[in-house]
């Protein structure tokens, strides 16, 4: 008796902890967004102006995270870099989501489109995402916009798969059949009945996709295919710091930590949202 009460309490506590994880994730994302928006007010120094006498300074009161090889304040560059990473993460995911969800809806709803669309997605899925993104950027040229496209294209097949499976599970349900029987048009059924009922799983999925998109964009920058200097970008900062790893490891360590915090924020949000929005999944994950 006592054991089961305790187990019950533990369970409740864990569910709460899960949601708290989502709250923490959300908090991190909001904080980073505010930092990105108010970068000019928050950053202690100019992120681009070189200050060679202070080059490779260790963390101090004036430069809390030290300076890079050009004497630029690492903290300021990280604060400004938040703009690039968040922007790429969100917009790339939006690109992938809008194309992928549309394709998935169509493939799931119209059986004749299913084969061709999903086989095309299989082709895209047969490439490692990094190679695909690198190839796209290499072809289009390195820039922020092209990174967004490259990273966005990568997530199209996964969005298509998720939304297709949503349609397949919803379209035989009574409310959809009812709407059709009442004479609703196919677009109306798809966008007014099926899509709104797929929102929560898609939201969970999107949150995790933003995390992946930020990681992938950072990899592209790391390889020199992202935002071009002197614009501060986290992945590029880690890469630039490699040459000074021996005498000034903070050049690489701190920007990498920033990427980790941002990605962790979106992952926590996704994990927590999944449990909060989808009790079935939550039960499997918790118990």
């Amino acid at each position, binding site marked *: 008796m006592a054991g089961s009460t305790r187990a019950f309490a533990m369970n409740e506590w864990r569910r709460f902890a899960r949601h708290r994880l989502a709250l923490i994730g959300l908090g991190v994302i909001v904080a980073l967004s505010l930092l990105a928006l108010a970068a000019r007010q928050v950053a202690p120094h100019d992120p681009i102006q070189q200050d060679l006498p202070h080059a490779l300074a260790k963390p101090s009161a004036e430069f809390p995270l030290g300076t890079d090889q050009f004497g630029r304040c690492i903290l300021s560059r990280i604060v400004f870099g938040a703009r690039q990473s968040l922007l790429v993460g969100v917009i790339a995911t939006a690109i992938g989501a809008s194309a992928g969800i549309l394709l998935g809806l169509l493939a799931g709803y119209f059986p004749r489109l299913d084969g061709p669309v999903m*086989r095309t997605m299989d082709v895209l899925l047969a490439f490692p995402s990094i190679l695909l993104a690198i*190839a796209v950027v290499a072809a289009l040229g390195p820039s922020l916009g092209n990174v967004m496209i490259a990273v966005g294209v990568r997530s199209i097949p996964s969005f298509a798969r998720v939304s297709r499976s949503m349609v397949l599970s919803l379209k035989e349900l009574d409310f959809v059949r009812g709407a059709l029987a009442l004479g609703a048009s196919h677009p109306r059924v798809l966008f007014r009945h099926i899509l709104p009922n797929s929102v929560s799983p898609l939201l969970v999925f999107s949150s995790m996709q933003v995390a992946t998109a930020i*990681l992938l964009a950072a990899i592209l920058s*790391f390889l020199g295919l992202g935002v071009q200097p002197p614009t501060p970008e986290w992945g590029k900062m880690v890469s630039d710091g490699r040459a000074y*790893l021996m005498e000034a*490891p903070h050049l690489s*360590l701190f920007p990498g930590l920033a*990427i980790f915090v941002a*990605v962790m924020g979106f992952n926590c949000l996704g994990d927590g949202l999944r449990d909060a929005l989808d009790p079935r999944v939550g039960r499997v994950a918790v118990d």
Partner: protein
Amino acid sequence: MTRYIFRRLLQTVPVLLGVSVLAFAIMHVVPGDPVRLIAGPDAPESVVARVRVELGLERPLHVQYLSFLGRALRGDLGRSLRSRAPVIDEIFSRFPATLELTTVSMLLAVVVGIPLGLVAAVRRASWLDYLAMGASLSTLSMPIFWVAIVAIWLFSLQLGWLPVSGRAGPVWEWEGLRHIVLPAATLATTSLAIISRLTRSGMLDVLGREYVTTARAKGVPPWSVVGKHALKNALIPVVTVVGLQYGFLLGGAVVTETIFAWPGVGRLAITAILQRDYPVVQGCVLLVAVVFVLINLLVDVLYGWLDPRIRYE
């Protein structure tokens, strides 16, 4: 079963055809004239025209594609624009290094990941569980290049235990082993995190089933319930993921190979992309996709063997 395998093999044909179209398209959608690239920027027009004919680039697109496909099927992927060596040789000279790195890192991920997930599930809601799952979620949020750099900084530069980069022979030789530790461990982190999470959720699912309760009630020792009755069924999804990860990584771990200067397929691919060495890019893309599709097939077949409830009809 044989019929199923045959049908799945047939299904891969359109996917592989699509991949070949995409690989072929790479050469033709990129901005700039590949012929100019080969002939050099200030080659006279006559030379450019000759190279164009030599490469068969003056023919209609569909003819070019069919001849590309025909040659690819016979194992002829053209020659590298840089080294002039056949692409197939370039790839296969890199493949052992990638195979070695991938295999060692997957072994590492499985050997550490499964017990970790198992312990987390059995000791559910203990500090061990929270620690293991917190660590795996954190690992999944770390950029792999950063993990690599931190590892190099700590184990090579600070402690001086392991070499910074490169490959010094096969893994069964001492120097080879020393060189593979850091790249393999770095590469293993993501797979390890995924495997331990999956093992944990699989175990939690299975441990609640009636047949496990029955086994316990019959007085089967706890280690046997966990190790024999539960684990076998919990590992089915893990097998899929291990297979898929392995397939992905065989295509070359681009980032890890780049940072550790590991002479594998991934580094070949990225170098080729950056140098616009299109035949090599095409070859790598084809190889990666074929390996991935075949591993996918293998995983599906293995799945049926592990779980007789799955019927292929």
